[in-house]
């Protein structure tokens, strides 16, 4: 957990997250990430071997469903209303720029 983030890491993460950083944004991002990661390294002080990770915190551990809900068709969102929010659409499909570069 003491890994220092490098410029190459920032570029790799940017690609994974579909974000791009202007050249002048890279240095501040490096600085902030390293500061935050140094801080979260405090967790290394704790021995967590054998501790089950916790992902679900409600009082619901396993929902006991006496009977599954009936499988019936219910109305969905109005297609025209949904498509009206699209930046570009032909009414039935979302349109995007070309996917394959050639």
């Amino acid at each position, binding site marked *: *957990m003491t*890994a220092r*983030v490098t410029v190459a*890491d*920032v570029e*790799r*993460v*940017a690609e*994974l*997250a*579909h*974000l*791009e*950083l202007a050249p002048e944004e890279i240095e501040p*991002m490096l600085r*902030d*990430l390293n*500061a*935050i*990661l140094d*801080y*979260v*390294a*405090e*967790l*290394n*002080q*704790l021995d*967590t071997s054998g*501790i*089950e*990770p*916790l*992902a*679900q*915190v*409600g*009082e*619901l551990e396993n*929902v006991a469903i006496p009977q599954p*809900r009936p499988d019936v068709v219910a109305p969905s*969102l*109005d297609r025209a*209303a*949904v498509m*009206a*929010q*699209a*930046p*570009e659409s032909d009414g039935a499909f*979302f349109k*995007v*720029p*070309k*996917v394959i*570069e050639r």
Partner: protein
Amino acid sequence: MTTETKNTESYVEKPKTLAALRDEIATGRTKAADLAASYYARIEEKNPRLNVYLSLTKERALAQAARVDDLVKKGDPLPALAGIPMGIKDVMVVQGAPSTAGSKILRGYQPPYDCTAVAKLEAAGAVLLGKLNCDEFAMGSSNENSAYGPVRNPVDTDRVPGGSSGGSAAAVASNLAVATLGSDTGGSIRQPASFCGVVGVLPTYGRVSRYGLIAFASSLDRIGPFAANVRDAATLLGVIAGHDPKDATSSPAPVEDYASESDKPVKEPGKAGLRIGVPAEYFAEGLDPEVRAAIEKGIAALEAAGCTIKPVSLPHTKYAVPTYYLVATAEASANLARFDGVRYGHRSPHSATLSDMYSHSRDEGFGAEVKRRIFLGTYALSAGYYDAYYLKAQQVRRILAEEFLRAFAEVDAIVTPTSPTPAFKIGEKSDDPLAMYLADIYTVTASLAGICGVTVPCGATKAGLPVGMQILARHLGESTAFRVARAVEAAQI
């Protein structure tokens, strides 16, 4: 001219209680339509400085007010919130109304459906005035991360209202709404309630449906109410709580009558008083002395009201902020992947390929803090780092949650300061993300553990800045938290 209004114009005003307004509306002394109009007039006057509302939903509000007035005219029974003017944090979607989440990436988005919590308020007669400013995607502790400018604290307009539900807290503190809804992922209801001197509720994880809440960190996100007094906050929770088939994480547990439960004293005749735990870890280094003094007065008031005060130990508290920022950012990086310029929201016009369109749209649409968190979360989840960061954080999360369970075997509620400091100045921490994260030190533990809590006003500093007490209770223990909050409120510290 406007810069001088601070000293000459007061922004703080306490809304009337739900009971008083209900009585006025039911007897016809006040028309719901007139009440809504008076709120819009006040918004027009005060909002330019406070920047609380991002958009107004006048047409919808006036139609709802007319329906309420119609019920009164016919002598029909009135629902619980008939005619009550309310505001909604802009991370909850309202059909046909702008829903930006404080982000440029959702500028112009008009959702085709209603958030369940909002629909429940309207079904109970509430009049929705508009959408409230917040940190972008609810990421922030000061409301300075909104793409639409910071909200100002009505108590001192040079200071932040807290975040991320800054608009929701400031609207109640300035009477630009009688009550509001906010969302809390790491403290985003409780901390602004504390900074603005109002009541804020963190319901148990799953108590309120999140359908229609724009997701930040799904294992942490909750919707909850803000109000000017504890009983009204309890009433509002009763309206929005309950199972929702559209949210599989919503709890099927019966909804209690929180308002009536909150009427019960902390010490009932012939019974022992409630046991209140005080964790030393929340009163350690870094706590502002004036905040400490105010909270200690609150604890003394609880003892005077018949509670038993007991020390409890939560020794892993210092690990909560790093744990929170790993869990929350990892989940955020996944949730915010949906903003890609394809189906709704901002699409960059400067893209020749699909891949360029994704990254340009996101680069142009997201602000600095959102990008920082997506980066951190993506990094923590990426190959080679997952075990060291995300898995480790989930393990520590279990330690923190179990620590609370052990404490609640001994006590009925735990009281702490909500924030280590009162409201800070706008700009004071905005260049240092880590310092900003540490502002959440007392609130993130309950978020990680899934338990419930209430922040209630508990005195003020010499400069007049509000201090809030955080009252935590076990899962589904909202009624207990409200009872304790009523006792603190009644002590008028």
